């Protein structure tokens, strides 16, 4: 939408100066409060950035060296004040203010906007982006924070002073060692690995068949059937777990491997149904008729024609089912037994009793796995769209 290019022109210092002073003031305020005097920081910051902006936009208009200079300068100040980590923060400060000075000073901020916007609208446009950025930060920060903490050399759930100073002594792999050698954790991982694939296999095979059935025209009670099959995803897990606990005890599979597998399989089914049905919506039914016309029996048609085309949907449904089982804890707590502790269960008990940051090592490994899964699903989605002749979005 922002295809219109607005010609840009340098802004007068009467605009750049106050803006940069405001930014500098804000940054200076933060640093100032941390070091004792907020007011002094505010004054120094405002004066510093406004002055630099004046020099770089009005006097010495060399953008590249000026920006490098600012990075180096702020990093040096940071290093003097607080060592390596403060130097990095200072460098980032410098990079940002250097970029911002020229972005404002040269009027580049209007380049990608339509020319008729009022200053207020421009301001709102960027404020809105900052708000969105903050929300994205909210989404991603907790996951990012876990990772460095898992390398903590202490048994704390928080950053130690050594870690903040980037001192190598503050970091260690001991929680990973614990995770990989402690029999409680390895046993839990092993149980999860034993349960999830079998549950996935059941949900994928039954789910795919049913999705193919559901996608045919003229299925009686289609809505009701669909509602029943999606319900495991909607019904709160605590209710499913309670019901399963009562019912599975009465038929004697509570606390057994197969009890958990069956429960996880049924919890994964809605995901398979949803993804496969979505793929089947755009499946060209005349292909199966063409195959039949050429003498293929229904089984051959299914495996040679239909299956390759809906495979991406099936696989991503399977991944959803897998992650559901791999991540599930409520049902396992209710249906499991001491020998059937899975990884999430182990993490849950660990979190309740707060034993050790080994949980964070486990969490980091799980995040890595989910990044891999996410990449796979995304790749499959694109492939599926390509195969159907749609341009990937």
């Amino acid at each position, binding site marked *: 939408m922002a295809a219109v290019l607005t010609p840009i022109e340098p802004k007068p210092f009467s605009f750049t100066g106050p803006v940069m002073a405001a930014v500098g003031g804000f940054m200076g305020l933060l640093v100032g409060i941390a070091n004792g005097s907020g007011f002094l920081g505010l004054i120094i910051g405002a004066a510093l950035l406004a002055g630099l902006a004046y020099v770089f936009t009005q006097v010495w208009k060399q953008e590249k060296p000026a920006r490098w200079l600012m990075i180096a300068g702020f990093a040096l100040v940071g290093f003097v004040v607080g060592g390596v980590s403060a130097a990095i923060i200072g460098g980032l400060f410098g990079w940002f203010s250097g970029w911002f000075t020229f972005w404002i000073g040269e009027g580049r901020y209007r380049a990608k906007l339509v020319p008729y916007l009022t200053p207020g609208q421009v301001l709102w446009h960027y404020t809105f982006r900052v708000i*969105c950025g903050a929300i994205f930060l909210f989404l991603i920060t907790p996951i990012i924070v876990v990772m460095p903490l898992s390398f903590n050399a202490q048994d704390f759930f928080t950053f130690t002073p050594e870690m903040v100073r980037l001192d190598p002594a503050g970091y260690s792999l001991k929680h990973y060692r614990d995770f990989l050698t402690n029999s409680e954790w390895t046993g839990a991982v092993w149980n999860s690995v034993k349960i999830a694939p079998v549950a996935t296999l059941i949900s994928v095979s039954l789910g795919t*068949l*049913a999705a193919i059935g559901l996608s045919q025209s003229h299925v009686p009670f289609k809505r009701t059937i669909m509602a029943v099959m999606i319900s495991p995803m909607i019904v709160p897990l*605590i209710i499913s777990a309670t019901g399963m606990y009562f019912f599975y005890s009465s038929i004697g599979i509570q606390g057994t491997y197969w009890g958990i597998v069956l429960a996880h399989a049924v919890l994964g089914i809605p995901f398979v149904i949803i993804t496969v049905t979505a793929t089947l919506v755009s499946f060209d039914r005349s292909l199966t008729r063409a195959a039949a016309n050429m003498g293929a029996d229904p089984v051959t048609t299914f495996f040679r024609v239909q299956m390759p085309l809906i495979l991406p949907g099936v696989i991503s449904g399977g991944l959803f089912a897998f992650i559901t089982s791999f991540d599930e804890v409520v049902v396992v707590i209710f249906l499991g037994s001491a020998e059937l502790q899975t990884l999430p269960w182990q993490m849950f008990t660990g979190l309740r009793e707060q034993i050790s940051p080994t*949980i964070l090592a486990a969490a980091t490994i799980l995040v890595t796995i989910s990044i891999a899964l996410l990449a796979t699903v995304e790749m499959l989605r694109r492939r599926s769209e390509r195969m159907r002749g749609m341009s990937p979005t």
Partner: protein
Amino acid sequence: MSDTKATGPQTTDAPTPDDGPHSAASLRGTDETDARGGLVTADGKSLKSSLNRALRMQKMRALMLIAPLLVFVLVTFIAPIASMLFRSVENEIVANTLPLTTERLQDWDGTTGDIPDEGVFQGLFFDLFLAAEAKEHTKLGTRLNYEQTGVSSLFRQSGRRLDDMGEVYQDPLEDLDEAWEEGATWYELMSGTGAKDTALVANQRQRYNLLTSSSDSGDIGFAPSSAISEMLPLTARAYTAFATFTVYADEDVVAEEDPWEAVYAALALDLMTPGTAEKVAAYSGPRADLLQAAAGLDFPPADFTAGFADIDEDWAAHETWQTIQTYSPKYTNGYFLNSVDLKKTADGFEARPENERIYITLFQRTMFMSMVITCSCILLAYPVAWILANLPARTANLLMILVLLPFWTSLLVRTSAWKVMLQQQGVINDVLVWLGLVADDARLVMINNQLGTIIAMTHILLPFMILPMYSVMQTINPSYLRAAKSLGATNWTAFWRVYFPQSVPGIGAGSILVFILSIGYYITPEIVGGTKGVFISNRIAYHISSSLNWGLAAALGTILFAVVLILYWAYDKIVGIDNVKLG
């Protein structure tokens, strides 16, 4: 996206038989018609019936494909839910453990303030004796303790001292003749001669099975003679109960075991019944002499009322009996009344005392917090969905990863991350202290309260709000907004009057989804919620695993389930479940 139609779904899925084109061609070629003028196919059947048959075949095929999964879901998921619903009203334990007592209590008028008559106490003695032998009386005690505190210990104590009550009658008999001590004597006497009372055996077997939730059905090697069972009904019943238990639970031979004290007591009661003495005198079966001698004995008067009151004065309390009577039916609404802070009484229900009311508060809190979570999700998701839908595809896809990564990350990872972030020694507090915004000794309390639950759950459920909003906003044409502005609308008017109404379906879909998911959440509130930030689910889990009050857990679950079902129905009506999209 818009080119889907060109290559995409084949919309002409009319029920064409496999040989459709062929028969249609032959139809056209020969222009055949049947006698009534309807079209016919090449094989002479009318086109209508052929098409119907093909349609039927197609339906069958589709159902065949669906059937395995449907059966699977019904067995592994719907049946458990049904069993939970059933358990929320089921209350067979009282009638199964105390069959005679509950039967006799039916005639008792609990409103007068009197305790029940001697017959009820006699029934209680025999019921409790078997239950205590089978160690089932404590379960009943636990069950009734949910309704009236103290009943649990009452039952446990009584179970231990029942023997003493029976020995009062055992001693005179054994003093009279040592033969009464022999199991064989009893066996011979009770077996008698002539016709057997097999109905009584079946009856006691059923009683035993109901009591112990077992399903034994083998022959116990004993049946009282009809004559004995008619002459000494209580004894026959007690001895058969003893025989059943001996065979099924102890796996012993009836004739070799000495009977319980309860059997002696039953015999004494029978012999004291007016008219029995004459029948005994006329009896001539095996061991009739022993029986006739016993009939002449002077037993202490039967006073089980005093006996039980002696064990524990609670047995003489009106309240205890009222509780037993109130909960004697096989099905009860008591659990449901409990789960809305009411108390079941003999005549309807009453409100619980102020300090025992927790569930209404908990339901309200669950609803309120789910609503807060839903609202904060809307507030946070709307800008994000908007920007994702309006940025160029490449950038939007990159940013989408930031939404999908939390979505794909394990729930426990995210919950533990929030625990790390929100604790008093956690990351957020550390940063605030470092920045000097918060004093070190005045760190913010953000965990183990409602705030912690709301923050963590908003983060966890946010992707479920962003994704439906995004898919709706993608379909909104941006030129509407520009048109509105070119017609003179201000930014706000253009957004509020043109864009927002079109995005409402996305908000609706996301809100219902997030609300449904949040009212049933268990893990996150359990870890970051402390005591003030927990939901009704946590209470359900507590009753399942700690207090073992399964009926109440089931009733609470049923109420929650009903709420979810209504929302699910609304979701289906508004959004359509087949429109749920993932990723």
